[in-house]
């Protein structure tokens, strides 16, 4: 099976869908001729023409706004916001428009739209190229939120997202574009070509939204993670020599609560990890759900490991980032509780 980087897998997903469905259109800033600042759309304009893959003015509100109109017409736009940090001008179009169009029109108009956004830190991007705004989307009713952690999932989930009849926010952890990140920024990067999940099927294959994946079976504690933190959590568990069960949520909404519940009831302990800031982060929702569902099986308080409640810093990136050491300490704390 061919091995692909995450960028190649994402590009392949769009390529597959554009070739299968004339209604799929791709656009955003620098997306057309140049192929995107991360090269996710490279070659698509040459292959499908300028009316199906094109550059837009620098206006995130405009990009999502026209996408809503196009989706209402019957197209399936898959648009790129260059960095998730830039999505705020488009937030009204996502929250008040895309998310509610089906509901408020009683199904007369729908919004099959995908908004792709490179997300998260670990690339010395500072406060405007590092944010993880997933909780700002999961809090909104009417949209789905997806965060893949590897090339295979990225392709399968993006195809499902494009085929979905409702708007999907597709957050791409940019630190994972070229290889899994173990959380040690001072070590050489492992390329996806040396990772099992860099193996990506050719052609059309879909991974359904709303299903989590168990990355490591374990008995001692359940770790809930998504995106970059799946890999960091794996390193943390290995380095602390803890028999953790690591669940890669893949889709935050809809959430695969059954997989979470089964695991926590088995281990009795739960550590939640995300890169986004702690307060009102998605971890808070997970924490509430786990305690409601698994309270009588819990043997220790649920612990959250997250980004500190500060803007994402530049020089202090690795003080901010919830790395293997912090996760390891949380695991030990949970086991000793």
């Amino acid at each position, binding site marked *: 099976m061919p091995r692909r980087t995450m960028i190649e897998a994402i590009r392949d997903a769009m390529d597959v869908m554009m070739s299968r469905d004339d209604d799929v259109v791709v656009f955003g800033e620098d997306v057309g001729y140049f192929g995107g600042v991360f090269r996710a759309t490279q070659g698509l304009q040459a292959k499908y023409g300028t009316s199906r893959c094109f550059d837009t003015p620098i206006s995130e*509100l405009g990009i999502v*706004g026209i996408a809503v109109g196009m989706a209402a*017409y019957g197209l399936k736009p898959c648009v790129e916001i260059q960095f998730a940090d830039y999505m705020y001008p488009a937030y009204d179009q996502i929250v008040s428009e895309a998310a509610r169009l089906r509901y408020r029109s009683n199904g007369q108009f729908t919004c099959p739209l995908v908004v792709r956004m490179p997300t998260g830190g670990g690339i010395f991007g500072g406060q405007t190229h590092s944010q993880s705004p997933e909780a700002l989307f999961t809090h909104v009713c009417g949209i789905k939120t997806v965060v893949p952690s590897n090339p295979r999932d990225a392709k399968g989930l993006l195809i499902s997202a494009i085929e979905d009849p409702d708007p999907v926010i597709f957050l791409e952890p940019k630190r994972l574009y070229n290889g899994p990140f173990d959380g040690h920024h001072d070590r050489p990067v492992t390329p996806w070509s040396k990772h099992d999940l860099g193996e990506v099927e050719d052609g059309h294959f879909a991974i359904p939204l709303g299903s989590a994946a168990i990355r490591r079976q374990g008995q001692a504690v359940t770790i809930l993670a998504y995106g970059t933190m799946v890999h960091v959590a794996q390193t943390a568990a290995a380095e602390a020599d803890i028999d953790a069960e690591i669940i890669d949520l893949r889709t935050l909404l809809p959430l695969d609560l059954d997989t979470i519940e089964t695991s926590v009831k088995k281990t009795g302990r739960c550590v939640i990890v995300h890169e986004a800031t702690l307060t009102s982060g998605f971890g808070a929702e997970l924490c509430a759900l786990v305690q409601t569902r698994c309270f009588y099986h819990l043997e220790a308080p649920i612990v959250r490991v997250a980004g500190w409640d500060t803007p994402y810093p530049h020089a202090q990136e690795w003080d901010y980032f919830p790395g293997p050491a912090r996760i390891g300490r949380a695991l030990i704390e949970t086991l000793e509780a």
Partner: protein
Amino acid sequence: MPMPDQNLTDDTMSSRREPVRSPEPVPLKLHVPEPAVRPGGKPDFSNIRIPRAGQVDRPNVDVDAEAIRDLAFSVIRVLNRDGEAVGPWAGALSESELLEGLRHMMTLRAFDARMQMAQRQGKTSFYMQHMGEEAVSCAFRKALLPGDMNFPTYRQAGLLIAGGYSLVEMACQIYSNTHDPLKGRQLPVMYSSREHGFFSISGNLATQYIQAVGWAMASAIKNDTKIAVAWIGDGATAESDFHAALVFASTYRAPVVLNIVNNQWAISTFQGIARGGSGTFAARGLGFGIPSLRVDGNDYLAVHAVAKWACERARRNLGPTLIEHVTYRVGAHSTSDDPAGYRPKTESDAWPLGDPVIRLKNHLIVRGAWSEERHKQTEAEILDTVISAQKEAESYGTLHSEQRPTARDMFEGVFAEMPPHLRRQRQEAGV
């Protein structure tokens, strides 16, 4: 004294001159525009320059935007003071079409009056009427073809009435009753009818403007023949969505007509707050190279003629057109405000463009196609039709009656397929 023109010399010269001294600092002052008059004052519209009917040229539809810059500062008018249709924009409508147009405007006015009253009687929570602006949406609708899509705001119900939408369904939406086509999910008057080319009204302002451009772009991408029509009020042109729409419409030459309904008031805020230093709202389009026109929004014939011109441009792939409809909101913004608190009570009487219904009525009388008597008779007939539609709608319930969409309906339609968490919540609600 500093010599400001010293700065205008070229680099080689200025390097040899004395350094320019800064002028004495002047205390800065914030400019906040004010309307000409406030409550208690004498209404004054002398600032609105209104050319005689028939005076403005009708350019070819493929005209360059630059060549018609003056149309963004003038007002296209067809009906003159004597009720005659004059000038190059006249003559597009037959007598029967004009009679139909009059009927649509009268229906909208009668419907508004009944629904306004229904709100006062507690049958619904909220209403917004069109008084004075009926020509804008009623006339524009007649320039559209099946399949075209409007992206309206809350004061274009004439698009529905002139498009043949059922008054009963409109009233059911307003009452949020069991027959509400939107299942009680939307505030009254936030209609939606795909079938009638009427996009779901958001209730947020301006969001629809950029969406219309996207819809038009989609039509162009698919080599379709349908066009989109965007609607916005004077106040909401200040939103970023409006400006983004102009950028995208200009860049991609989208087949869209961009309408601004300037009814002079954004709730209590006069149009000068949104317009700022720009001469007119239409002038906003000039920087984008979009042909921009102003039209007498109280002149059914003028609105229709300009709409047709703009729609033809879109259909012929000539790109967007911006139209400012100069009109006046005679009534309150909604059932939630009282205009006496922010403008003179008699201001609407002083509005120089008159009443759209009376002007079309007079024109038809001048043509010999209508009479005061027939008008009164028709008014009574229309009122009967509206009342019977209202009664039928009320038989399906009003807002606070028992006949309303169920709590179970509330959980439907958030997604195409109900996700597990919502299913659990619905179970918890016991519905």
